[in-house]
C-alpha cells in the first residue's frame, strides 16, 4: 500500500519541537530531574516529589514509557499500568552509492516481519521478530541499559528477510545495529486515561512501538479528557481501566508481551485468543468443563468456554484455524444453539462482574436512582435492566440490577467492567459509612440455564413451582437447588431465550452443576459456550456494552426508551441530555441487519466494523455480528447515521429514515444486500414446534 503523503519524522526532533513550542507558551521544563513519587491527598493528585524538591499540581500525566509501570507502583496507592519492554533491534547502514532521497517511501514487509526506510541516505531497517527478548522484567536497571548489546544472532532472521526482499543490498556497509527497547501492553493497544484510584492521575504509555504515529492523536484525546473529563471519541479500548491489578504481574506481562510483539506483523484474525498468560482466573467448574471438551477464551483474565468439542470431533490446529471465512466451530455451535432452542443448555458465566450495594437506610436506593436511568424503586425480587449513563446520556455501563431487599441490590455487569464500574460508582457515591459497596464477583459461580426445558430441570431440583405464574420473567428468588440452599435464581438468560441464571456461592458450584447435569439428562441437557450465547443474543437484537454500546451511545439511540424513566422523580445522571435528545431526535440509530445474498459457506463472514451503505451511501459501521442458526442468515448490528449528501453533516435519524432505505453491508469490498430492522424478528420468540414437524431424531438425547 503506497501512501503518497506518507512522511518520516524523527522522534527526537518532534519531541524537541513540541518542547520548544511549549516553552514559548510558558511551560517550564525541568531537565535531569527524576520523579520519586506522586503526592496524593484525599484520592486527588496534589503534587510531585522529585529529587530536586516538590512541585504542586492538580494533574499528573505518567508518560514514562517503559518506566511507567514502576512509576505507577511508586505511589502510596499504586497505579497499575500493565506494560513490559522488549528489546527492539534496527540496523543502520552507510549511505547507498546513490544516497536515498528523503521522499523514499517507508516499506513494510509484514511476511518478512521488517520495515525499511531511508536514514541519512542509507537504510534504517528493523522488525518484530517471532522470538522477542523481554527486558527489564525486574525493573529499571541502569547496568542493563548501559550494556544493551547488539545481538546479531538474534537479528539474523530479520537480516535474512531484508536480503531476500532486496538482494542487491548485500554490498551495503553496516553502520551499526541499535538495540532500543520498546514497550508493549497485554492486548497490543496503548494505555491512556485517568487512574481508577487517584483523581488527576493520568496515563499515556505502552505505545507498542507506534508512539510516534499515534502520539499526536493520543495526546489530543488525553488533553480533552483532562479538560472536559472525557475524550471526544469512544476510546474504551485504550482506557487504562480496561485493566486491573490482575494484569500487573511481571511474569504475566513478560510472557504476554512475547506473544504480543510478533503479532504486530501477524495477520490478525477475528476471535483470536491470546495463548500466553492464561488460566489466571477460573471458575470452580473449569476442570469439569475442560474435561468435557471446553475450548476457552479469556476476558479480563477469566477463562470462559467458547464451545464444547464433542469427543468424536476434531478441530483444526491453532494455526490452521485462523480464518475470515466460516470457522471450524460452526457445526459445534450450531448444535449448542439448537439445544438451547429445543431443550436446555448450561453455560458457565461466572466471569460477569457482580457488585452488591447495601445500606442501613434508603441511601442505596437513592444513589442507584441517581446513577441509573431506569426506575429501581421496584418491589423486592424484581430485576431491572438499566444503563449507567454519563452526563451526555451515553452508556458508562449496562447492567441488570436485582433488588434483593429493600436496602440491598445485586448488580451484574460485563466482565471487563470490574475496574471501570467500580471507579465510576466510587466517584459518584457520597462518602457515607452507612452505604456499602462490595465486589462479590469471586463469591459466586454463575450458571446460565437456557432453553424451554430449563424450567423442568430447576423445578425438579428445587421442588418449587417454576411456571411463569409463580416465577415471572425478570424475577430473582433465593431458593434451594439440590442439597444447596441460598442459590440466587433469576429468570433471565441475557439472550431473550427462556431460562434462568443461577448465582451459586462458589462452594456449592460443583454440587449444583453435577445435580443440574444429572437431572437435566432426561431433558437433553448439554454444555454450551459463549459463541452459542452470542449467536442467540445477536439474532434477538440484544446489544452488549463494550461491543455495540459505549460511552457515546444513548439508550434512545438503540431503541431502549422503555429502560429510561425520565419522570421517576430523580434527576439522574444524563437525564438532561436524554431529555434534549428526546426533543431533538437522535443522530444515529442501532439497527439490525439480516444479510440476504450472503453464502455462509463460501463468502467472507462479517465480523464487525463492516461499512453500512444506505441507498448506496455510507451510513455507518457494524458493531457486532453473528450467524443466526434460526434465521439461517447472518445478522449484523450497527449504527445508521444520516450524513447530509451536500455537507456530510450529521442529521436526525428517524424510524422512517431507517425503514425507507435499501441497505448493503460491505464485507472486504463485496456488498451484500441486507434487511434493516429496528425491532427483533418476532417469530424467534415463538417456540412451539408444529406437530407435523416432530421426527424420531427429536427423541434422541442431545
Amino acid at each position, binding site marked *: 500500500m503506497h501512501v503518497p503523503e506518507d512522511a518520516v519524522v524523527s522522534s527526537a526532533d518532534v519531541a524537541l519541537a513540541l518542547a520548544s513550542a511549549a516553552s514559548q507558551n510558558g511551560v517550564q521544563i525541568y531537565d535531569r530531574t527524576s520523579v520519586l513519587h506522586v503526592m496524593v491527598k484525599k484520592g486527588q493528585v496534589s503534587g510531585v516529589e522529585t529529587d530536586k524538591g516538590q512541585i504542586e499540581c492538580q494533574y499528573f500525566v505518567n508518560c514514562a514509557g517503559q518506566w511507567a509501570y514502576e512509576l505507577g507502583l511508586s505511589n502510596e496507592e499504586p497505579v497499575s499500568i500493565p506494560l513490559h519492554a522488549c528489546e527492539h533491534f534496527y*540496523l543502520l*547502514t552507510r549511505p547507498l552509492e546513490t544516497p536515498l532521497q528523503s521522499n523514499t517511501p517507508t516499506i513494510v514487509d509484514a511476511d518478512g516481519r521488517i520495515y525499511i526506510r531511508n536514514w541519512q541516505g542509507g537504510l534504517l531497517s528493523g522488525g518484530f521478530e517471532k522470538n522477542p527478548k523481554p527486558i527489564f522484567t525486574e525493573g529499571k536497571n541502569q547496568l542493563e541499559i548501559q550494556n544493551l*548489546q*547488539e*545481538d*546479531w*544472532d538474534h*537479528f*539474523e532472521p530479520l*537480516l*535474512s528477510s*531484508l*536480503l531476500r526482499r532486496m538482494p542487491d*543490498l*548485500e*554490498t*551495503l*556497509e*553496516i553502520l*551499526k*545495529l541499535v538495540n532500543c527497547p520498546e514497550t508493549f501492553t497485554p492486548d497490543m493497544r496503548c494505555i491512556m486515561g485517568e487512574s481508577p484510584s487517584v483523581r488527576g492521575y493520568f496515563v499515556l504509555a505502552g505505545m507498542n512501538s507506534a508512539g510516534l504515529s499515534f502520539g499526536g492523536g493520543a495526546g489530543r484525546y488525553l488533553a480533552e479528557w483532562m479538560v472536559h473529563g472525557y475524550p471526544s471519541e469512544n476510546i474504551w479500548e485504550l482506557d487504562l481501566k480496561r485493566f486491573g491489578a490482575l494484569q500487573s504481574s511481571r511474569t504475566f506481562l513478560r510472557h504476554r508481551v512475547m506473544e504480543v510483539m510478533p503479532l504486530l506483523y501477524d495477520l490478525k484474525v477475528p476471535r483470536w485468543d491470546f495463548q500466553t498468560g492464561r488460566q489466571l482466573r477460573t471458575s470452580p467448574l473449569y476442570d469439569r468443563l475442560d474435561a468435557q471438551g471446553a475450548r476457552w477464551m479469556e476476558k479480563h483474565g477469566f477463562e470462559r468456554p467458547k464451545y464444547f468439542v464433542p469427543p468424536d470431533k476434531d478441530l483444526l490446529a491453532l494455526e490452521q484455524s485462523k480464518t475470515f471465512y466460516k470457522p471450524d466451530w460452526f457445526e459445534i455451535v450450531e448444535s449448542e444453539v439448537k439445544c438451547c432452542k429445543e431443550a436446555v443448555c448450561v453455560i458457565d458465566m461466572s466471569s460477569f462482574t457482580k457488585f452488591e450495594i447495601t445500606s442501613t437506610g434508603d441511601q442505596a436506593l437513592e444513589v442507584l436512582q441517581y446513577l441509573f436511568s431506569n426506575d429501581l424503586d421496584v418491589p423486592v425480587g424484581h430485576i431491572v435492566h438499566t444503563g449507567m449513563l454519563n452526563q451526555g446520556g451515553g452508556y458508562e455501563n449496562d447492567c441488570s440490577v436485582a433488588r434483593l431487599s429493600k436496602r440491598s441490590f445485586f448488580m451484574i455487569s460485563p466482565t471487563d467492567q470490574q475496574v471501570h464500574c467500580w471507579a465510576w460508582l466510587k466517584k459518584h457515591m457520597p462518602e457515607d459509612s452507612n452505604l456499602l459497596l462490595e465486589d462479590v464477583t469471586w463469591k459466586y459461580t454463575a450458571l446460565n440455564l437456557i432453553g424451554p426445558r430449563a424450567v423442568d430441570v430447576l423445578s425438579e431440583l428445587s421442588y418449587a413451582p417454576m411456571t411463569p405464574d409463580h416465577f415471572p420473567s425478570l424475577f430473582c428468588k433465593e431458593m434451594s437447588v439440590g442439597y444447596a440452599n441460598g442459590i440466587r435464581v433469576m429468570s433471565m438468560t441475557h439472550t431473550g431465550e427462556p431460562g434462568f441464571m443461577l448465582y451459586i456461592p462458589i462452594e456449592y458450584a460443583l454440587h449444583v452443576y453435577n445435580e443440574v447435569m444429572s437431572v437435566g439428562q432426561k431433558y437433553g441437557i448439554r454444555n454450551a459456550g459463549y459463541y452459542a450465547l452470542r449467536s442467540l443474543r445477536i439474532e434477538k437484537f440484544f446489544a452488549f456494552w463494550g461491543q455495540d454500546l459505549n460511552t457515546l451511545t444513548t439508550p434512545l439511540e438503540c431503541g431502549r426508551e422503555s429502560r429510561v424513566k425520565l419522570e421517576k422523580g430523580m434527576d439522574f445522571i444524563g437525564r438532561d441530555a436524554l431529555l434534549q435528545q428526546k426533543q431533538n431526535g437522535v443522530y444515529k440509530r442501532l439497527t439490525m441487519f439480516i444479510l440476504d445474498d450472503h453464502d455462509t459457506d463460501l463468502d467472507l463472514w462479517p465480523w464487525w466494523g463492516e461499512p453500512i451503505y444506505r441507498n448506496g451511501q455510507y451510513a455507518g459501521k457494524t458493531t457486532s455480528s453473528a450467524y443466526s442458526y434460526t434465521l439461517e442468515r447472518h445478522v449484523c448490528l450497527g449504527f445508521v447515521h444520516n450524513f447530509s449528501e451536500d455537507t456530510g453533516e450529521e442529521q436526525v435519524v428517524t424510524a422512517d429514515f431507517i425503514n425507507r432505505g435499501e441497505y448493503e453491508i460491505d464485507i472486504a469490498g463485496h456488498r451484500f444486500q441486507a434487511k434493516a430492522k429496528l425491532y427483533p424478528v418476532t417469530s424467534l420468540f415463538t417456540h412451539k414446534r408444529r406437530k407435523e414437524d416432530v421426527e424420531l431424531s427429536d427423541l434422541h438425547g442431545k
Partner: protein
Amino acid sequence: MCVCPGPRRIGIPVRSSSLPLFSDAMPAPTQLFFPLIRNCELSRIYGTACYCHHRHLCCSSPYLAQSRLRCTPPPAYATFCRPKEGWWQHTQGRRYASTPQKFYLTPPQVNSILKANEYSFKVPEFDGKNVSSVLGFDSNQLPANAPIEDRRSAATCLQTRGMLLGVFDGHAGCACSQAVSERLFYYIAVSLLPHETLLEIENAVESGRALLPILQWHKHPNDYFSKEASKLYFNSLRTYWQELIDLNTGESTDIDVKEALINAFKRLDSDISLEAQVGDPNSFLNYLVLRVAFSGATACVAHVDGVDLHVANTGDSRAMLGVQEEDGSWSAVTLSNDHNAQNERELERLKLEHPKNEAKSVVKQDRLLGLLMPFRAFGDVKFKWSIDLQKRVIESGPDQLNDNEYTKFIPPNYYTPPYLTAEPEVTYHRLRPQDKFLVLATDGLWETMHRQDVVRIVGEYLTGMHHQQPIAVGGYKVTLGQMHGLLTERRAKMSSVFEDQNAATHLIRHAVGNNEFGTVDHERLSKMLSLPEELARMYRDDITIIVVQFNSHVVGAYQNQD
C-alpha cells in the same frame, strides 16, 4: 567363515528381565517394519535389505573382523548358517523382481531411536553452589546386538567422597557385563572404605540394624539390576569386606585408590569364577552364575574425587580427557591403554607370562589364542580355568550348558592357563581447569571415530552456546551480505548442536551418521538405524558412552589452595 557368537547361538534363553530392555532399546526398526509388512509393501524392505546386502559384500571384512570372539566353526554351525544363507538368496532373488524403493526414517523417528537410552545427571547444588568437581554426566547407548551386550554404571560413593562411572562391553552374551555393572562399584566402594566404616557395616549386618548406604546409583530406567542374584552377590561382597576387616592390623592407613581399584577388579573376577565353580542349589541361579562366568566383559571405570581422577581399565574400552587449550581448541588426552593386539606392552606381557614355545600361539591373528580380541576381561573362564576344571563344571552343570557348543569348545593351544586376567591398568590424572570433560566409551565408538574428533565434537557441543562469542561490528567494514553469511553459518552450527540435549546422544549421532566430510548425514543415519537387528551387528558394534563434565571453578579453586 567367521560369525559373531550371539547369545542365541550359545543357546541361552533370553532372561525375562532383559526382555523389556531389548524392546526398549530397539523400538523403531520393529515398529516400522511390521506395519510395512502388514501393508504388503515388501518391496521397500527388500530395498533396504539389498542396500545392506551390498554393503555386506563389499565391506564385510573390516566389520566382521571386529567381532570380539570367534571360534573355529564346529559342524553344528553349518546348520545355523544355512537358513541365513537362504534368506540372503531369497532377498537377492526378489530384488530383481521388484524395483527397490528408498525407505528412510524421519528425523523424529531417528531421534526417538537415538534418545531411547539417554540419561543425564546433574550434581545437585547446595546453597546455589556446586562444590563437586563434577558438574554432571550424560550417557547413552545404541544397541547393535540384540539384546545389547554393553552396560553402563554411574554412582556416587556415599561413605567416601567421589563418583564412579563405568562402561562395560560384554561378549558371548550380556550376562557377564550385566553382573559386572551391578557389582563392581560395590567392590570398589568397599575397597575404599576405612576400617571403622567396614566394622560398622558388618556389625549392622550382624545385629540386623539398618545398613549404611554405600552407593547412590544414577540409572536410566533401562539399566536394571538382577533381583534373583542380589542375595548371592551380597554374600560374596560381605565375605570380601570381612576379609578386609580381618586383614587390617588396626593401624589406620590412608587408602590408596589405585590399589583399591585393582583389588576390587581382581576380587570381583575371582568371585565370579568361584561362584561358578561352587554352583547354587537354585537351578536358575546356578545357570546364571555359569552364564556370567562363561561370558566375558571389559570394563573401563573412572573414579573422580576432587581433582583426583583415577581410571581403571580392563580391555579395549577407553577413557579420553577433553582438554581445552588456551586458544579455545580441543585436544584429547588418553587416560587408558587398550588391552589388545595393537598394544605392544600387552603383547610383551602375554609372551612373558607363558612359556617361550607358546609365543606364536598365544596371540594369533591379533586375537588371544586366535579367538579373543581384548587381552584382559572379566569372566571368560574358558581362558582362565584349566581344561579339567572347565570339563568338570560343564558336565555337572545344567543341560543347557552341556548342549552349548561354544561353552564345550576348548580353545586351541591351551597349555598354561590362565591366559586372561581382569586386573586393570590404573591411570592417575590430577585435574586442571583446562580439563573440561571425560569421555568413557566402549570400542563401538572408538572404532568409528578418531579420538580427536570425539573430543572436538563433545567440546564444541558442551561449550557451543557459551563460546560462540557475540558478534560486534565495532568499526570494521562489514557488508550486509558478509554479515548474513556469517550469521547463517553460526545458526547452522547451533541448530545441529541443539538438536540433542545430551552430549552422548550427540556423539552417537556423529558416530553413526557422519559422512566423509565429518558432518551428520541424515540419510546415512537413517539407513544405519533402520537395519534389521540381524544385520546391525555387521555394520557397527554396541556403543555406550558416558560424558562426564568437570566443574572448572571447583577444580581451579583446588589448584589455588595448594
